[in-house]
Structures are given as C-alpha cells and as structure tokens.
C-alpha cells in the first residue's frame, strides 16, 4: 500500500494536456483524496513541451513530487525528457500505434490505442481519454466518478461527444483491468472525507477577494496573473463587479485608486514587469492614504525573463517600490488556502490602515491546483475608517468648509469621506498636504504628515505582529528551515520525507513579510541547531531581509532560480549531503 500517487502527462501544446490533468485531479479529489496539480508550459500557443502533474495523497497533498508513479506520454519527446523522474516501478503509458519507445526506465505499458478507439467508436483525439480510463483502474478508483467528470467536461459538446468519450473511458478502464491488473497501484483509502474544492492560487485569490467585498478590479493581462482577470470578468455579473481591462498597468492602478477614493473596494493584479510600471502609483496610494490591494504574481526575470516560469525574485521590488517613505503591507501566501485567506486579510488591512497591501504570489501558486476544504458559503464584511459608512448620508455637518480628511491624531488613522457626501469635500493629494489635503511645503506639516503615516505602520505592525509566523514540525529540531510564500508547499512535503528518514526537522513559514515579524523570526533562528533559508531567487533576498531586520546572518541558503519550483526531494537531498 502507498499513501500517495504522482502522475505526469506530457505532450505538445494544444493536445489538451492541461484539461486532462484537471480531470485527473478532480477524479482523485472526488474520490476523497487531497490533490495538488502542477503544470509546466512554454510561452507559446501551439507545440512545445507541456506537462501536467497530478499528485494525490490520502492524508495530504502539499506539493507534487519528482519521482513518478505513472508517466502518460502523448508524444515521443515526453519519455526522453523525464527519465530522471522515473524509476524501475514507474508505469510508462503510451500509444503503441504512434510511438516507438526504445529504451526507458520503468515498466513499459504499450496501449493499442488506435484499436481501442475504433472499438469504442471514438475519435483519434480521444487517446487521452483512453489513458484516463486506464489511470482510473490502475489507481483503484471508481469508474463512475470519471464517467461523471467526462460528462460534465464534454456535456457542452453534445450527447454524441459525451457518448464517445464515455465509451473511451470504459475502453481504457477495461483494457487495464483485463491486461494490466498486476500493475495496479494499491493506494490507501482517503484518511478523512470532507467537502473540497480544487482551485489555482489565482482562483482562490479571486474568490477570497469577492468574498471580501471587492467591487472594482482593473488590470492589464500579464502571465501569471492573468487568470485572476479571467475569473473576475466571468463572475462580474453575478457579483455586480466592475471588471475593467485597461490600456496598460499604469492605467489599471490609477483607475483602481480612483475607485478606491470614491469608496469602492478595489484591486489590481500583474506580474513583476507590470508592477514596475505601477510603481509610481503605489506611492500615490501611500500619500493619499487610499486602500488598495495589489497582487504581484512573480515569474522568472529580470525584464521579460521566462514568462511562464516560476521565481521569487521580486521581494525587494515590492518592498521598496516607489519613491519616498510610506507604509505598506506585503503578504505572501504559502498555498491555495492562504491565497483565499490572505486576500480577505489584504482588503481588511488596506481599508483599516488606508494603505496599499501587496499580495506577493508567484507562477507556482497562480497556476498550480490544490484541493482545499470548501470555504463557507457566506462571508461578513465590515467597513473601516469612514466618517459615515452610509454613503448616502453626510460625512460632516459643515458643507461650507473642507473636510479634515488627514486630521492629525495619535495612531495616524484619520477618517475618510467619499465624493457625494455632504460636509466631506476635501482634496486627495499626491503632493504633500495639510489636514484638508491642500498642498504644503511647510517643514512642520511635512514632518507631521510623515509621522502620521509612519504611526499607521507602527499600529499595523502591532496588529500583524500578533499573527506570528507559523512553525511546522515542532518547536525544536535538528534541522530548521525558514522560508516564505509558496515554498511552504515543497518544504511541508520535504518535512514528511525527512520524517521517513528519521531526521528531525521543523519549518518557519513567513507569510506576513512586511511589517516584518522580527521577534518571532529572531527567536526561531536563535533556537535552531542548523538553519536553512529556502527561496527561489539567486541572491537570497529573504535572507538579506532577515539580516536587515534581525541582525542575524543565515549561513545556509538553498536557492533555486531555474524557473522551476523546489521539489521535496531537492530539499531532502540538500539536507543529506
């Protein structure tokens, strides 16, 4: 028996690698397993080498693993490209009618796919579906679950197509049952059955944002942030959202800030290059004290870099973007659940502290799939910081004089009015300003306003500081990892591998990056016997931040910057050697 299964599908773009992968993931999820799906693809529309990896676990699915239980090759290149991921037991499934496989690791399972398709009255394009049926049997899952998924997926194409696809599923399933039964993998049953949903990080973020009362979203398409725009535009009618694709990222953020000024909860999203264009307006949100949620989903850089590949090299960019000093918050979700939770948190912090909150995601989170417990159906939201949160009513009694929008007070948070409210007229100003918002160059007022904004950061740090970074694997261990963002996925998977090897290890996951959780990080590092910083960039940006904030230098840095995320095995190998 084994408690997880790891399957990869490989083929050229346009052959439905991703859609088949999605069905595979859902098949496991609906069977009660925890699921993680990871995809790799080049920046083009047709051709190239695409893969989808489905990992399912009976107890957990933190991340895909390197070693494959099954490889489904839709083209010749797939088998050669993934030799390193195969061992003697890996089942290699391929079409014996179209592929010639000379030498490979693993157990070769040639399928007479053309023949099976013919008998099932299917179409040549359904080779994938035959493979799906076989995987279903070889993983010990109920074929009805797969049949239902096929019906849902192809239902829109008409009954005839559903019939053909269903027949192909059966053909694959039956062929495997009759001829390949000895290769079937004995997978533990799911440990706990609960209602789950399967989401990408981007979908989880979009869902979290909608639940938090997002009303205005403006963005310009940029991989890997684009699918947030796709989700939101798809839901715009249902949730009464304004979703606007703008002429560029500069327009996107300036428009979102206009909407925020007018009182709507607003968000924009982009990748590193688009964020660079937004930079000037990030500072405007700072000085105008406008709430804004900005998602920066990192990809390989610098410059255009490798557009469809993973990286975590924009940490310093988001921490320092824009001229001048002003408070901001940076949150880095570690998995799909955190994408949802931190999106909600971002809207709360942005509105309460009246500042830009950056959610730092990456390609790995944005486009991978993970099953999470189904979130609650209904969500409550409060409004913060308005002189009168009923926008139909007056913000103040006096409509003859400007409203003191930037009133100086301890704690730095001052009340807002929104346009249309009587007694609330003021100037929201990108220039340094007085308490009404009018421009000032007076030394004393400049200091007072800087101090006002800084005070908000101190309050924010107090509140955020309470949510200490989480430690996994116990308070003390022989090996300690510290990391941030999406590395949570492979590091948690690595903790399991280390446990199997009897190596005691723990892990501090930092997801509230700024304000920085100084004390917790400092204490964790001081308590550790061997501390290893894990991140996906070349210069150890997080390690630098740790040193800046705590004075502690981490000697061991496990860095990766080849466009691929860490695999649990990489981390295990590093620890052992």
């Amino acid at each position, binding site marked *: 028996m084994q408690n997880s299964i790891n399957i990869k599908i490989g083929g050229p773009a346009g052959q439905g690698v991703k859609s088949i992968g999605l069905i595979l993931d859902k098949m496991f999820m609906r069977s009660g397993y925890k699921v993680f799906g990871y995809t790799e693809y080049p920046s083009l529309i047709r051709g190239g080498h695409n893969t989808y990896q489905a990992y399912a676990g009976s107890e957990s699915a933190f991340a895909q693993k390197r070693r494959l239980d099954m490889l489904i090759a839709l083209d010749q290149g797939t088998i050669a490209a993934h030799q390193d991921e195969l061992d003697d037991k890996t089942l290699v499934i391929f079409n014996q009618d179209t592929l010639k496989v000379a030498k490979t690791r693993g157990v070769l399972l040639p399928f007479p796919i053309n023949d099976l398709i013919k008998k099932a009255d299917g179409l040549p394009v359904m080779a994938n579906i035959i493979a799906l049926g076989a995987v279903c049997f070889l993983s010990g899952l109920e074929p009805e679950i797969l049949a239902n998924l096929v019906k849902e997926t192809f239902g829109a194409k008409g009954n005839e197509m559903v019939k053909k696809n269903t027949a192909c599923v059966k053909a694959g399933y039956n062929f495997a049952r009759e001829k390949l039964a000895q290769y079937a993998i004995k997978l533990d049953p799911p440990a706990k059955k609960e209602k789950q949903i399967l989401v990408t990080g981007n979908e989880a973020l979009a869902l979290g944002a909608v639940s938090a009362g997002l009303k205005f979203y403006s963005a310009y398409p940029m991989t890997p942030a684009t699918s947030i725009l796709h989700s939101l535009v798809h839901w715009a009618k249902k949730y009464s959202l304004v979703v606007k694709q703008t002429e560029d990222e500069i327009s996107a953020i300036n428009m979102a800030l206009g909407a925020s000024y007018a009182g709507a909860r607003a968000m924009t999203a982009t990748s590193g290059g688009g964020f660079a264009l937004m930079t000037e307006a990030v500072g405007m949100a700072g000085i105008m004290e406008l709430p804004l949620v900005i998602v920066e989903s990192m990809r390989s850089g610098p410059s255009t870099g490798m557009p469809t590949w993973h990286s975590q090299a924009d940490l310093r960019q988001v921490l320092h973007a824009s001229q001048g000093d002003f408070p901001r918050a940076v949150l880095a979700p570690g998995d799909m659940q955190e994408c949802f939770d931190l999106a909600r948190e971002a809207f709360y912090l942005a509105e309460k502290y009246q500042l830009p909150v950056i959610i730092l995601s990456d390609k790995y989170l944005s486009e991978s799939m993970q099953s999470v417990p189904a979130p609650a159906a209904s969500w409550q939201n409060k409004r913060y910081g308005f002189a009168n949160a009923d926008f139909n009513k007056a913000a103040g009694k006096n409509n003859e004089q400007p409203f003191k929008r930037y009133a100086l007070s301890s704690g730095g948070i001052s009340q807002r009015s929104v346009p249309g409210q009587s007694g609330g007229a003021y*100037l929201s100003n990108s220039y340094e300003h007085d308490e009404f918002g009018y421009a000032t160059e007076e030394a004393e007022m400049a200091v007072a306003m800087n101090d006002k904004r800084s005070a908000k950061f101190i309050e924010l740090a107090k509140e955020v500081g309470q949510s200490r970074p989480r430690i996994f694997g116990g308070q003390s261990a022989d090996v300690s990892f510290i990391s941030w963002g999406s590395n949570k996925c492979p590091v948690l998977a690595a903790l399991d591998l280390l446990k199997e090897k009897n190596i005691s290890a723990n892990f501090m996951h930092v997801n509230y990056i700024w304000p920085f959780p100084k004390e917790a990080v400092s204490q964790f590092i001081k308590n550790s016997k061997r501390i290893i910083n894990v991140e996906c960039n070349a210069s150890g940006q997080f390690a630098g931040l740790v040193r800046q904030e705590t004075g502690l230098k981490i000697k061991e840095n496990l860095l990766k910057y080849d466009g691929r995320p860490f695999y649990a095995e990489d981390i295990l190998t590093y620890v052992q050697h």
Partner: protein
Amino acid sequence: MYNTKIKPTFCPGCGNYGIKQALQSALEQLDLKPHQAVITYDVGCNSNMADFIYAYGFHGLHGRSVPSAAGIKLANHKLPVIAIIGDGAFYSEGGTHFLNLMRANHDVTVIVHNNHRFSLTAGQYTSTTEEETITVTSPAGVIEEPVNPIAVSLVNHATFVARGFAGDVKHLTDLIISGVKHKGFSLIDVLQPCVIWNKEQSYEWYKKNIYYLKKADSKRQRALKDALNEKKLAVGVFYQENKPAYHEEFPALIKKPLVYQDIRKIDIREVMKEFG
C-alpha cells in the same frame, strides 16, 4: 462658493485664471454644490488649481489623472467628473490614456489647458508646440510636428470635441456646461496663453487667429475640416454624438452606483460550484 482660502499662485496674466473662472461659473450654473462634483487634477501649473477650488478633488500623478477620473466615475456614476490637465500631461506623458479613454466613451469632461509648453518645469516644448519653435530644450527649433488633439479626437471616436479660449471666459463656461451635460467623453482643449514661456501665442495673437464655430457638427469628416485648418484656429464644439457612456454598458451599474452596493454579506456558494 467654490473658492478655498488659498490664494491662486498663477502668474499675473496667466490663462489659468480665465479657465478657473469659467470652471467655477459652470459649476454654479449647473447648480452643483461642492460635494456634488469631483474634479481631478494632474501635475502642472494648471493643476495647482486643486488647492484653490473647493469641491471633492483628486490631485493625481503626471499624465495619469484621467484614468483615476474614469475609475471615480465607474465607482460612482451619479457624480459629474471633470478632469483638469495640461497638454504635456494628456497629449505627451499620458498619451495612451488620451487615446484609449476617449474611444471607451468614459463619461468624463476633460479640460486640457493647452499652453504649448511645460510651464511648471520652466518652458520646455511639449507635443503641441509648433515645429521650429525655440524653447529652452529646442535651441535650434522644435523638430517634431505638433499633435493635433482635435483631429485625433475626431477620428478616434470621441463623442464631444471642443476647443475654447482662456481669454473668452463666457464662451468657455458654456463649453464646460455642455461638456458636463454631455453623456460620454468630452474633450475641451483650451487655448491658454502662457505669458512667461510662450511669448508667441499671446492673448492678442489668439484673438487675431481664432474664429468661432456656429454649432456642433454631426459628421466627423466635416468637423475635420475645421480641425485641420492651418491658417486659423477654430473654437467651439466641433462634433457631438449621442451614444451610451461606458458605465451604461456595465450590468453591475444598472441598479445603482457601485459604491452604494452593500458588501456586508457576500455569498460565494454559486461560484464554488465551478470548483467541486
């Protein structure tokens, strides 16, 4: 009613005085109280007006304030939104927003203080400065041809295209009133003398070189004739067309403005079905 306590700092004789006066008198004639309109400002001498006008204001980034104006309108479409901006900001730094917001027909009235100079940074040429003009950054004369904002707007789907003159406040006031009343994007390019950095185009020069259009045309091609007149500058409304404004095409905005929609309780059950 629309004055703050701050005294305008425009140079004596600056065209901005006339534009400010026209704007305030338009607000008055439109019967808008200070809390019933939003004015966005860019960066430049013109936009220093932000401190002198009492109303809801948004003093944004150089060249980028009109996207903010569009965002404000989409968030609360019951409010008239007026954008104050200069030629350097709208036709140069923010050129892409000029092209794209116009064709989207966002319901924003954009008043461009066109003095053909970057005046606040001390007199450099802009994208509307005439060819061969000598400025601090073009000692041998400007090499480029100037942008013709009226002609560009006419061929790029703007639904209200007008030009005013800062020296004719009454006429400009009427243009602003028409622009605000117009449902959709209105461009009001204003010929603005800069008495410090642009000696060539003085009040007297403009008075000699402008002529008044009788009424708005309904055909873009006919209107282009006046827009392309190289000898004299036409002022007035070149073209006007009735067409749904951008915000009128959004299902989310049919019932009420976005900011008045309740977010206290959100149910995500429906979308979660996609992920089961």
